[in-house]
């Protein structure tokens, strides 16, 4: 196609360019907003908190200001760090157990309808029973406090992994399943090459929920367990500080718990993205 250079084809071009530029600007803006806005909100809340405490002269055993919480965190870190490690360990191990037993059970369930029919209801029972109601029993039967905490956290965390993975294993495209049959695939090949990859996005969705729940389980169980001594986590520090009206330390411990929860979420989101970015819709980038 030849275009007469005298004819101003460019007439329509600047319009498109402007639209394109606008779109790019909007995109850049929203990308910046994604991290800048939460930070702005954070700064505003801290400032408001600080203003409230100083302006109303609230005593620090009722509400310590953000500065005092920060300095307490710094000064008491020696005491808090050990407890933080305990909570982290219980949370991490509980999540690991949830992955192994939740995922393993899901695979077992899809291999045999009978096993699923027999045991799935009990998984639901475990899930719907409030952990604070079973925890005292568990601490009667289990001597080791860490083991008791671990069991409690696991009970809270495993169900999302179990139910999501079960759903995922059964959600493989039915035509693909037929194709595997046509080529004479064994049960193992079907699991390895079809069901497990199809279940991965579901499993990861469950994992992100379970990450937060295992932290919650670890903290809640410790409130029930109560007693101090070796192997006391952050929840015990909060209880202990509340008896002593050491509110700044309560806030400091709480801050560590929140930071841990957010960190778990970020790490698991990153893992999800790394594993799915090549092929899954959820990790797909689309313009506009």
């Amino acid at each position, binding site marked *: 196609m030849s275009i007469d250079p005298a004819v101003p084809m460019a007439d329509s071009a600047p319009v498109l360019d402007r639209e394109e530029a606008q779109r790019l600007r909007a995109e850049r803006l929203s990308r910046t907003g994604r991290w800048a806005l939460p930070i702005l909100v954070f700064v505003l809340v801290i400032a408001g908190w600080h203003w409230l405490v100083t302006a109303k002269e609230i005593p620090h055993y009722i509400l310590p200001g953000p500065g005092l919480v920060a300095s307490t965190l710094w000064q008491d870190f020696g005491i808090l760090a050990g407890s933080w490690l305990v909570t982290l360990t219980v949370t991490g191990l509980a999540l690991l157990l949830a992955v192994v037993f939740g995922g393993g059970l899901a695979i077992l369930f899809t291999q045999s309808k009978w096993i699923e029919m027999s045991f799935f209801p009990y998984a639901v029972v475990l899930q719907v029973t409030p952990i604070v109601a079973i925890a005292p029993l568990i601490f009667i039967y289990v001597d080791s406090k860490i083991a008791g905490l671990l069991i409690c956290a696991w009970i809270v965390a495993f169900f999302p992994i179990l139910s999501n993975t079960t759903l995922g294993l059964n959600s493989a495209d039915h035509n693909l399943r037929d194709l595997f049959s*046509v*080529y004479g695939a064994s049960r193992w090949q079907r699991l390895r*090459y079809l069901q497990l990859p199809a279940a991965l996005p579901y499993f990861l969705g469950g994992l992100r929920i379970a990450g937060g729940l295992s932290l919650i389980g670890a903290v809640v169980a410790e409130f029930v367990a109560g007693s101090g001594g070796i192997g006391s986590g952050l929840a015990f520090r909060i209880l202990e500080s509340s008896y002593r009206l050491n509110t700044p330390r309560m806030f400091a411990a709480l801050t560590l718990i929140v930071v841990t929860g957010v960190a778990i979420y970020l790490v698991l989101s990153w893992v999800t993205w790394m594993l799915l970015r090549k092929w899954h819709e959820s990790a797909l980038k689309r313009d506009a």
Partner: protein
Amino acid sequence: MRTATHTVPSATADGTSRTLLAMQNVDKIFGADVVALRNMTLDVQEGDFLSLLGPSGCGKSTALRLIAGLSQPTRGAIRWGTPMADGDLSVVFQEPTLMPWATVIDNVLLPFRIAGSLTDEARDRARDMLARVGLAAFEGAYPRELSGGMKMRVSIARALVTRPKLMLMDEPFAALDEITRFKLNDDLLQLKDSMDCTVVFVTHSVFESVFLSNRIVIMAARPGRVIRELAVEAPYPRTEAFRTSAEYAAQCRAASDALHEAMGGDVGVH
């Protein structure tokens, strides 16, 4: 999955073609009373491009699944004229049915992976197959990066990579636009010719079936059954010239009339 092979006698008078498979008085009943197929008898000769043409719900997919061994006849039998091993039969569905987590080449290699023969030779064959469907440059791509027509090409490459004796296709191009469909029709005929396989092809489209097939089997619904069979005598290779010929138009009219008759004249043909 397919049952033991029974030899069926060569069917044609001149003895040039052999029977690949024969459905003999097959009934397929779902549940208590859904008669998907009633007394279906059909033979497929080696080298055939046979289309099953009929209205929605007449049991075309059911017939294909029976041939694929994905379900068993309620009555009657399917007999094979030649022993069939895994990989001698392949299926192409209406959707491309690719594994989204696997690259194009890994999708094409699936039959070999399942057969436990993921050799260098298999890889060469998969690459060759991708080149034949025009996707040599895309072996490392993921399905989501491909257009609908390209995905269907991958699906066909996977179906042909084992050099099957029989390829079953269930409305493979129904979801594609007309331009893409014409191109894929042309390419499919070439591939079939060069790979020397037999095709059973399910379609709603009279025009597609006439262009592709040497035999058209017309089916009717409620209960699903074979109404009649047409031969399309035009010689292969068929090209764009055939698509615009008077012969093609006449054949389409004949098939269209037959289909109309099959449905008791109550449904229009698109």
